[in-house]
């Protein structure tokens, strides 16, 4: 027991902070309906601000802590409220996209300003406060434990007893009714976001001495918080806090036990995701009482007239055919771009027609790529090239099903969380294993024997991409597409009309995973060899955000997204690749703001503060007028 004690103390301190982060996240989710993926990024920003003030400028620590928490909390709260205001009652898909964009933007901003290397920082509270069973407890650890507990209790009491607390829980149900009751809903929401952001900021400041100052590490802290939130079933603050502690202590103990085993080395780090995943599956959160609002993003596809469509198609085809002549040595980039068109189309199929969000499409691509390498290469099974391609796609499907089936019954948000947890789990545990990228971290993938030249390979890849696009268009136009559009708005109606709701969702998810696997495989064949880095967990986030920025039309947006991700870097300075997250995240945020502004400008005559759902009201307006 005594040899476990040091680990328990470390775990308690870390777990308290996970709990603190989780509590802030739960607060904003229950009061605004938006699950803030940028929570960890705010923590990172606050940590950097604090250490600039304290270490670089020499401010006393209490002043620096207060300033960092208040400034980041208030600013962050204002920004997040503004950005999410018009999606706050819309579907979870829009909320995920916006906050993921915000997360990439904030994280990119921090990295841009402070660089990517980890800075070690000394604890700002020196010394120890005492000993428990011979184990020294540092002042920093004590502070973390005490502050987290106090903040949680304070928030709990505030929410239960104060009028503002009640208003915060009411605004998510029906904000216009709250308005009719005499409280300004935007003010209530801003207050909630400010408190939530302050919790994030406080977590960041307190945890940095343990983790070091590293923007991506601190941003990922949020995932520990996801685990805690799932334990709290997305609404209970005390349970969330307890979940955080359990994760912290559990991870610390695991670190001790797995000690020397290399196979299990990734396990402690993966614990939060396992907790997230298992909590979602074993103890599914109840559906929110409020009416699920419909899939907003799904219906606003731009309907081009048929002639224009045909024209655009012909121009695109001509351009694509001419590419090998035009681009010279850069052709391989275009070939991998064509591979990415498939990945993006598969994602667009999921997001746009069913309002479901996957944050693990990069992992699907990775599994497709490595299994393709195994099936096709001479050191593997050496199957015919096309057969290997199809098998690579099929290999992803069962994996996709394992992630999706438990979560899909719940909601779009839960699916997004489960897939994100899965992506990180894959990256940490599966990528290094011999089944995937192995110790070398690299896999070679062959070209087809009939298309060994760059130009031929380009045409083969484009042909497959075109076939996939055609297939996806057909799917969205036929029964499955219609059912999914209906499901996004009223699952209950379809359920009582005889549809097994999960089947439709799983079918589209499986198709999407299959196509993503094929896209990954083609990318591997185009580049000749792939490493895990091309399919990191953050890439999935980037895909989603780029796709959102690339427009609303199904196929064109996928093509634009693939060009932006895979082709543009070849023509732009290196900084573009380095700051892709920042650029696209920022663009998402700006676009969200700009669209709402534009909608308002167009209808200056009507500022409809209407119904329970402003976005929907606007959409209905525009739908009715076209």
């Amino acid at each position, binding site marked *: 027991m005594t040899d476990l004690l040091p680990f328990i103390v470390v775990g308690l301190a870390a777990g308290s902070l996970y709990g603190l982060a989780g509590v802030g996240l739960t607060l904003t989710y229950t009061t605004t309906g938006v699950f803030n993926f940028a929570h960890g990024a705010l923590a990172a920003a606050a940590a950097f601000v604090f250490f600039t003030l304290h270490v670089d400028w020499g401010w006393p620590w209490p002043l620096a802590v207060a300033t960092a928490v208040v400034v980041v909390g208030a600013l962050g709260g204002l920004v997040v409220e503004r950005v999410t205001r018009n999606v706050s009652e819309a579907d979870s898909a829009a909320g995920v996209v916006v906050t993921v964009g915000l997360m990439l933007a904030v994280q990119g901003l921090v990295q841009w300003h402070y660089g990517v290397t980890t800075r070690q920082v000394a604890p700002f509270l020196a010394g120890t406060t005492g000993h428990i069973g011979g184990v020294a407890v540092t002042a920093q650890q004590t502070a973390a434990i005490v502050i987290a507990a106090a903040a949680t209790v304070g928030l709990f009491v505030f929410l239960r007893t104060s*009028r503002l607390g009640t208003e915060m*829980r009411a605004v998510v*149900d*029906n904000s216009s009714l*709250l308005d*009719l*009751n005499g409280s*300004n809903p935007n003010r209530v929401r801003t207050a909630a976001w400010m408190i939530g952001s302050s919790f994030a900021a406080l977590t960041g400041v307190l945890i940095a001495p343990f983790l070091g100052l590293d923007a991506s590490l601190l941003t990922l802290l949020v995932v520990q918080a996801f685990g805690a939130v799932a334990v709290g079933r997305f609404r209970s603050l005390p349970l969330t806090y307890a979940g955080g502690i359990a994760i912290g202590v559990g991870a610390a103990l695991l670190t001790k036990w797995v000690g020397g085993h290399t196979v299990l080395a990734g396990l402690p780090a993966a614990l939060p995701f396992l907790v997230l995943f298992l909590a979602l599956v074993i103890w599914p959160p109840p559906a929110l009482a409020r009416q699920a609002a419909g899939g907003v993003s799904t219906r606003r596809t731009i309907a081009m007239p048929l002639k224009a469509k045909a024209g655009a198609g012909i121009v695109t085809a001509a351009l694509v055919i001419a590419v090998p002549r035009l681009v010279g040595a850069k052709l391989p980039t275009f070939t991998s771009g064509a591979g990415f068109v498939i990945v993006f189309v598969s994602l667009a199929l999921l997001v746009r027609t069913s309002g479901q969000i996957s944050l693990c499409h990069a992992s699907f691509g990775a599994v497709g790529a490595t299994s393709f390498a195994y099936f096709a290469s001479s050191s593997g099974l050496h199957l015919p090239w096309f057969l290997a391609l199809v098998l690579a796609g099929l290999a992803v499907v069962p994996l996709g099903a394992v992630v999706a089936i438990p979560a899909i019954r719940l909601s779009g948000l839960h699916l997004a969380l489960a897939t994100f947890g899965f992506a990180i789990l894959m990256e940490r545990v599966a990528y290094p294993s011999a089944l995937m990228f192995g110790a070398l971290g690299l896999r070679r993938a062959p070209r087809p024997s009939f298309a060994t030249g760059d130009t031929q390979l380009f045409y083969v890849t484009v042909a497959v991409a075109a076939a996939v696009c055609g297939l996806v268009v057909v799917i969205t136009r036929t029964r499955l597409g219609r059912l999914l559009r209906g499901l996004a708005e009223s699952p209950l109606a379809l359920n009582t009309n005889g549809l097994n709701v999960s089947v439709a969702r799983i079918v589209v998810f499986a198709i999407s995973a299959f196509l993503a696997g094929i896209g990954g495989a083609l990318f591997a064949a185009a580049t000749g060899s792939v490493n895990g880095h091309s399919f990191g967990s953050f890439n999935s986030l980037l895909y989603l955000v780029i796709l959102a920025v690339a427009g609303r039309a199904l196929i064109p947006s996928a093509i634009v997204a693939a060009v932006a991700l895979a082709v543009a870097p070849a023509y732009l300075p290196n900084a573009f690749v380095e700051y892709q997250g920042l650029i696209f995240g920022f663009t998402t945020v700006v676009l969200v703001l700009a669209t709402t502004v534009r909608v308002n400008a167009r209808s200056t005559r009507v500022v409809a503060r209407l119904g329970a759902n402003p976005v929907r009201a606007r959409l*209905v307006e525009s739908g009715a007028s076209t």
Partner: protein
Amino acid sequence: MLRIDAVTAGYGHTTVLHDVTVVVPDGSVVAMLGPNGAGKTTLLRVASGLLVPWSGRLIVDGTDATGASPHRLRSLGVCLVPEGRGIFPSLTVRENLRLCCRAGQETSGLERARESFPVLGKRLEQIAGTMSGGEQQMLALARAYAGDARVVLLDEVSMGLAPKVVDEIFAFLARLAAEGISLLLVEQYVSKAMAIADYVCLLDRGALSFVGEPAELSESTILANYLGAEAVGA
């Protein structure tokens, strides 16, 4: 006094209300009748600040409140009980009632609501969204009693209520009016509404076709105006 003055309003590119003027004098009950889709709900949305009119003005006690937000109008004493279920489903009944009242007057407001609807008093801790449709409607209606409104706008509040309860509700409305609170009442129970109304307005396809006292309206005029020629034949 609430005055909706020459208001034109609608959604997107569709105009719903054409140059409508309605006055609710202090302490009086105005019944607003009209067929489905006539624009009654739209009119109440304008009066409560949910929808900003394209032209025309909204005047509360002499102050121009055109374009004011719903919470500002609430502080001027205008209270809307919206169509459908105007409650916060995930909050308890007690919390719902608390939010209906001004800060500081929660206890007295709660008492008034319990007097009006004993059912609610027995279910203070139930999550509002799990109550039956009619119980939710009573909770929504409690807003009118619990708060300290001066003009109450009611949009088909008797919808989905048992006949006995409907009778009780009209008795309540009469009591409310007797306390000097003005009411603008949209109702499907035409004759009940007429019985407590001081003035009646008929709204047809977004325009007023009649304004006057109930006695001026014969049953047949209402039928012809309200139901349209097609329905009379049916």
